[in-house]
């Protein structure tokens, strides 16, 4: 396929059947709409392009900035689109809780503004609601901005009513699925797709998924926040269900490990919510009472009249969420222990490490000139250190010695850290690795200072 612009590659995403052996539903075909395969990586590419396109030329002329309240995929797509059109982009957010996404946005050239947190001492007369301030700023005279306003902009919904929805119907041979399950973020995709599916078949059941309040799922509003979304209309959904972050991760793991679909947690939540919703329906379809023609699903609908179809949306890809996974399921990212690691030291080895107090260390330095290694960070080292010390910050030192001793066994070494705890561990480790004369500064640089020994700044 040949395109003149990457934006033409937005949409036209595949609908992929999930292997029944994975979800275990016998009477329902479950399909994933792979919005993660949009060129900028998510379902938001469609909305971002549809919302920004009409105003881009004008924004370029008056040097306006594209502005959006977004903590993730919409910001990512808008940053790319703005960049392609020579327009700057600013994302304002109080929800950017996944650090990789922040870095990625900065890489794409976006400016990020984070709104302040809640006050600790409540001032009930304070009218400084951060969002109100944001809107005031936008409407200030002379503020050149193009606010795409994804939570209220009808063009967001329209992108899916014109694209995502019809694509699903076409891929199901002109029919609506029996079930459509979607996570609710801006409500744009679920509302737009539901509108199209209902036009084809009013019997389609639409399930909206929102997050539980105790933890967040990126890109999904929780049960309260969803009410702040202008595009959200409860009547769009036959039911609203909640999904927890844990369940989203369970769903995501199934998709990435068993289905070959590298989905992020939002898609995981949709998969989990879909299977949970459909399992009792599937059992119902199994029961003998349902063996006859089903009034709701006329015979012409499916060759096997008891079979149903369901579609859920895979919003984006897994790669941006490694720190999200690491915080909640560190064991999934576990690595085998390394050979020369302080974690493997025994108590006996730690006890046997040679420590030396400040007075003796000063004499030893004067007499034998040991290599003094300061394990603190470079900022602290630059401010004050023992004269002649070299600075190898602990995390670097840790990597360095995995491969073996970084200095000769004939060279005596004095290790120093803030309180003498880490230096004792490394002294023990280097001793185990065969170094004959490594000593740890007892009480560390703090004891050295408190003893009145000299510290210098270069």
């Amino acid at each position: 396929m040949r395109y003149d612009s990457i934006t033409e590659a937005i949409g036209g995403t595949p609908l992929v059947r999930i292997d029944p052996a994975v979800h275990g539903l016998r009477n329902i075909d479950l399909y994933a709409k792979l919005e993660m395969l949009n060129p900028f990586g998510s379902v938001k590419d469609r909305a971002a392009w549809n919302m920004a396109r009409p105003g881009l030329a004008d924004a370029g002329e008056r040097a306006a900035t594209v502005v959006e309240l977004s903590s993730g995929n919409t910001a990512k797509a808008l940053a790319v689109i703005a960049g392609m059109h020579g327009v700057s982009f600013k994302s304002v957010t109080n929800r950017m809780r996944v650090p990789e996404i922040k870095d990625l946005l900065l890489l794409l050239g976006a400016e990020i503004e984070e709104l302040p947190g809640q006050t600790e001492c409540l001032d009930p007369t304070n009218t400084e609601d951060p969002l109100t301030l944001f809107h005031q700023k936008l409407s200030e005279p002379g503020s050149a901005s193009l606010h795409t306003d994804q939570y209220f902009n009808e063009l967001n919904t329209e992108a899916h009513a014109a694209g995502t929805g019809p694509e699903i119907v076409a891929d199901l041979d002109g029919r609506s699925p029996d079930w459509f399950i979607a996570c609710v973020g801006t409500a744009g995709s679920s509302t737009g797709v539901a509108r199209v599916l209902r036009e084809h078949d009013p019997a389609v059941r639409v399930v909206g998924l929102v997050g539980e309040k105790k933890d967040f799922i990126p890109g999904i509003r929780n049960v309260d926040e969803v009410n702040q979304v202008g595009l959200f209309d409860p009547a769009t959904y036959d039911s609203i269900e909640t999904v927890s972050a844990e369940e989203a991760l369970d769903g995501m793991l199934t998709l990435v490990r068993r289905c070959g679909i590298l989905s992020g947690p939002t898609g995981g939540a949709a998969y989990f919510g879909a299977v949970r919703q459909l399992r009792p329906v599937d059992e119902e379809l199994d029961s003998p009472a349902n063996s006859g023609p089903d009034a709701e699903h006329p015979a012409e609908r499916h060759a096997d009249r008891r079979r149903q179809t369901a579609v859920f949306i895979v919003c984006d890809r897994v790669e941006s969420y490694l720190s999200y996974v690491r915080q909640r399921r560190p064991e999934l990212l576990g690595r085998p222990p390394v050979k020369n690691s302080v974690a493997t030291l025994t108590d006996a080895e730690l006890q046997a490490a040679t420590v030396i107090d400040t007075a003796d260390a000063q004499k030893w330095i004067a007499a034998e000139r040991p290599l003094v290694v300061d394990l603190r960070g470079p900022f602290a080292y630059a401010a004050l250190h023992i004269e002649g010390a070299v600075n190898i910050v602990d995390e670097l030192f840790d990597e360095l010695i995995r491969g073996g001793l970084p200095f000769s066994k004939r060279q005596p070494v004095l290790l120093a850290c803030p309180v003498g705890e880490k230096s004792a561990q490394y002294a023990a480790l280097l001793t185990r690795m065969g170094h004959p004369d490594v000593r740890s500064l007892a009480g560390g640089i703090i004891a050295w200072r408190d003893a009145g020994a000299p510290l210098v700044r270069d």
Partner: protein
Amino acid sequence: MDSAPLYLEPHLEPSLASLLDSAAFLHTLVDALGSPLNVVLPDEIARNVERFRAAYRRHNLAGQVFFAHKANRSSALVRRLAATDAGIDVASLGELQHALGAGFAPDRILATGPKNPEFRWLAARSGVTVSVDGPEELEELDALVGRHGLPPVRVLLRLADFEAPGAKVLSRQTHFGTSVKSLDQLLDVVERHQEAIRPIGVAYHLDTTSLDEKAIALEGCLLAMDALRKRGFQPRVIDIGGGFGVNYLAHAAQWERYTTELTNAVLGKRPSMTWSGHGYGLRAENGTLRGTLSLYPAHRPVAGAAYLDELLSLPARALGRPLGTLLLENLYDLHIEPGRSLVDQCGLSLARVLEVRRTDTGDHLVRLAMKANDASLEEHGVLMDPVLLPRGGVAAATGPAAVHLTGNLCLEADLITRRTVHLPRLPQPGDLLAFANTAGYCMDFSATHAQQQPIARKVAVHRDGGSWRWCLDEQYWPITRPGGQQI
């Protein structure tokens, strides 16, 4: 919609829970001393200091824990604190006198906030460390020292408007401290007055629950300390203020359900949960929720010492290492000024039920011998149920009741809380309502003599074996147990 009562039960640790189990004792106190009545538990403040100390130990950090005195005026709490190794942060002449009189030596006192000349003089005269807002205050201190032949004053430079690389983090406007952008000019003033002023470090205090904002400020302080060192000073202290927070509620699920239902009520999807449909900052526009919930996050899984621990574990944006590690390896002491979190679980406020009536609309009104500002939970946005202590220990045999709590002022606005409060039983005249955990700001910070109604008296209590002993707050000294026995 679920119609079960919307409880917000207070989080109670063993001491406060056991005190609330002693209804007869609390009734006796109110019978003798009147309603409202504040009760403090001095021993709890020592336990809270120890929790912060444990967080310090986890990061190998030295430094001082200063109680922000403004959170509570109690003498018992301050005197009990003086018996620990903690310090105190005073923000007025009266608070400084109180701290000195309670046994705090000047090296354990920090004077902060807006100061009048008398407050500044007593601080400088007695050798208390002064947190200064800007160059003007440095000039004033210098003049004071010169005029009265005082010893040099140890100062902390309070800074504000920190910036960090990467994503821009906005903070609320503050009228305290000097912008870090003007640090050089501030240090010029310090240098000019070296004879009178000894900068021991820098400080910030941000009124926010956001860890990110505080992390940026702390990193900004590390950089500012380096600027001081470059000029030849030997600063040693970074003071990160307070704002560590308190967890008020026992159950996350109750808080989540309550806030969800409040949202529904504002949207008209369920009957109102408040007096006159008040929305606590939320409102509905065309079926969409607008505004921001202006309530204290009453259920906070990470608060107090745990919040400090989390802040110290965050990596600095530019310097890369965890903030606690950076403090440690730069050989700095960490000072903190917790208020609310240091008096967590340290007290409660009692009010007598005067009248219970049913209005034409079927609402229960419960009138208390207390003004709204006698337990100003509402003013601080803390939603938490009072505990019902029936007179004679026997509750009326009714089921759960939804009530409105009104105060003793002849004023429509004198509602103890604007929300409908769900109680397990309908209170009766003579019963007590106990507002738990009010020692941080909610007990006496806002209490007034409006309409010549009394301000609550305060008593200190101590559990002695199976029974509770008490004394008036001003009679308490840590060497005698309430009730007289010397320790």
